[in-house]
């Protein structure tokens, strides 16, 4: 049987996808082209299995060849983590959300912005202003994603990375990351304001933004809380009252010491 392959890397975690039809692999290559990498030994290998007849459209089932997620049922393998079959985009998001926790990181519902050698997170639920912040970004501020950012502890420091997952702002053109300097939780307001959060408030707010997808997500939640605590101890977290104006960047430059 023919075997089609592709591999990509998000937050320095490599995924390889194998399928017996080119359609699925083309989908990855079109959607995640900037994240493509050539790698001999990926961190995660995923075998895409065509959907059973009763599943409509582009849906496929997936099994991880090695390790935790593999689960067989009936005729084929399917995602152990979900009762439903998942579209490809959700599979990658799911895998990234779970695997990153094993790699001392989190997939966060946040807008990520890079400035020189530093990155910043702007967090909040839908409607809080993440895409607004991304749209306000002007040089030297550069968008990692307006919706989903990967954060990992590497060499005892947290770094934030772009992801192929995005909201209304659209696709980001670079696969990049840098040390995380500050975390902001967004409040739309009539004037700018900044208040540093205490540890437990910061962990709570981070926990509200952790992507953990699938039925048994709570199994990974305690590890996610441990990582969120470690993140909140390393990186200052603030509540940010903001106006949708480019003066946001001047305000932050004034309030936070920024390395050039």
């Amino acid at each position, binding site marked *: 049987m023919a075997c089609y392959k592709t591999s990509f890397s998000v937050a320095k975690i490599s995924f390889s996808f194998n399928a017996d039809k080119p359609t699925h692999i083309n989908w990855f290559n079109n959607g995640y082209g900037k994240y493509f990498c050539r790698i001999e030994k990926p961190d995660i290998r995923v075998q895409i299995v065509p959907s059973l007849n009763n599943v409509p459209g582009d849906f496929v089932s997936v099994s991880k060849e090695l390790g935790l997620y593999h689960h067989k049922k009936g005729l084929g393998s399917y995602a152990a983590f979900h009762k439903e079959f998942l579209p490809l985009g959700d599979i990658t998001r799911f895998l990234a959300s779970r695997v990153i926790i094993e790699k001392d990181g989190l997939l966060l519902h946040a807008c990520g912005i890079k400035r020189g050698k530093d990155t910043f997170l702007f967090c909040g639920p839908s409607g809080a202003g993440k895409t607004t912040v991304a749209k306000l970004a002007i040089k030297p501020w550069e968008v990692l994603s307006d919706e989903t950012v990967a954060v990992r502890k590497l060499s005892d420091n947290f770094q934030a990375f772009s992801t192929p997952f995005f909201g209304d702002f659209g696709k980001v053109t670079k696969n990049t990351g840098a040390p995380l300097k500050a975390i902001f939780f967004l409040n739309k307001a009539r004037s700018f304001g900044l208040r540093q959060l205490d*540890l437990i408030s910061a*962990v*709570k707010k981070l*926990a*509200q933004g952790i992507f953990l997808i699938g039925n048994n997500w*709570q199994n990974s*939640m*305690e590890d996610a*809380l441990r990582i969120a605590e470690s993140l909140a101890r390393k990186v200052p977290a603030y509540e940010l009252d903001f106006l949708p104006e480019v003066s946001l960047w001047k305000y932050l430059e004034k309030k936070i010491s920024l390395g050039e």
Partner: protein
Amino acid sequence: MEIFRKKDIPWRIIDGKALLVNPKTSLLYPLNETGARIWELLDGKIETNSIAAVIMDEFDVNKDEARRDVQEFVNSLTEAGLAQKL
């Protein structure tokens, strides 16, 4: 009365306080130091009156206050689906 924390509740003690997650509702519950200590003790092996004795010993409260606070707190936990009676 013996109460125990539900097994499927992810939780973490952070600087003596605690953060609990209800997996059914995805709601997060931060607990203060007293709440976190009670939560730790809710293993189903200790009765609420004995938990009150520990709280009286470790925090600055009298016996009646401790008993009332522990009872009210475990009732809230049970109502929130985080703990249950044996």
